[in-house]
């Protein structure tokens, strides 16, 4: 009842016509749907996750392969993992190159190189994180 009285006195009811709303501009539907399509991944702008991360993925794959290769490199005593697997499975004719350590004698890296490598690795990580962050914001 009180509300009813308030509404009767309500000057805003005279001024505000609920039918007189501000309508969305021309082309609103098309523009919004274009954004929705991009969001859904069916638009041409959307990159697939794999394509977007192809280069770092390949880099990681190659690095892991190289590290694995070094670990599995046969030693002179014939106790390497690959040799053991080859012997177990009986693969004939498996021959792997042996690293001649004598060639590396007399060759030494300065100690700063190890710091440099760690620095480069950290910068790579930092760069990757930043690029992911800014791409998401964009």
């Amino acid at each position, binding site marked *: 009842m009180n509300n009813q009285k308030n509404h009767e006195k309500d000057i805003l009811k005279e*001024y505000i016509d609920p039918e007189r709303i501000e309508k969305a501009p021309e082309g609103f539907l098309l523009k919004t749907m274009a954004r929705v399509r991009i969001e859904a991944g069916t638009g041409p702008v959307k990159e697939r996750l794999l394509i977007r991360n192809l280069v770092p993925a390949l880099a990681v794959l190659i690095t892991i392969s190289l590290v694995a290769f070094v670990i599995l490199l046969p030693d002179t005593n014939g106790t390497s993992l690959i040799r053991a697997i080859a012997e177990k499975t009986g693969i004939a004719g498996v021959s792997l190159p042996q690293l001649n350590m004598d060639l590396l004698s007399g060759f030494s890296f300065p100690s700063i190189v190890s710091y440099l490598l760690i620095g480069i690795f950290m910068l790579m990580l930092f760069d990757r994180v930043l690029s992911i962050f800014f791409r998401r914001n964009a």
Partner: protein
Amino acid sequence: MEYKGDIYYIDLVLRGNLNAFSFIIDRHKDRMFNLAFRICGNREEAEEVAQDAFLKAFRSLKSFRKKSTFSTWLYRIVYNTSISLVRSRKNKLLSLEDFPADMIDFMRITPDEDEAEREYKNSLVNFALQKIGDEERGIITLHYYDELSIEEMSAVTGISRANIRVKLFRARQKMTEIIRTSEKKENFRQSTLHTSNFPNHE
């Protein structure tokens, strides 16, 4: 084509029919744009806000629980997006002291007197809306234009029902005051104009 209801189109979208979302946008775009416009105060920002809101709704369509109506859920997104945008503005919109036009200005735009009066009232409401707070603008719009109940307004804004009543009361008072002041000035202008138009018999 007859609109088959929000839930029907939402289910279609969730099953991968992207075009079904265009029916939802078409259905709600004007109401959502109006809410954004009344809070932001200009069409450019309102369009941006309404588009962003539809995009947010699309992204989180799966999380729509169907506890409230879809339009209430959509209103909430538009309301929150508009309030965030207004609060993040570096430069506040200029708020004029007096309503910068009178009925005669609107008579120049349209020869139809009724239409001129409606346009004048609409502009005066927009002017008064810019003089009150962000949340109050949203509440006034939801109450007068969208005719939502107190419960629905509470669901949209996240403000308690008691607080909605208080804010609505205060906003109504402020707007009434602004409109009455502007009307008095308008009446004064018209009477001055009328007096000055009398022929001088001296």
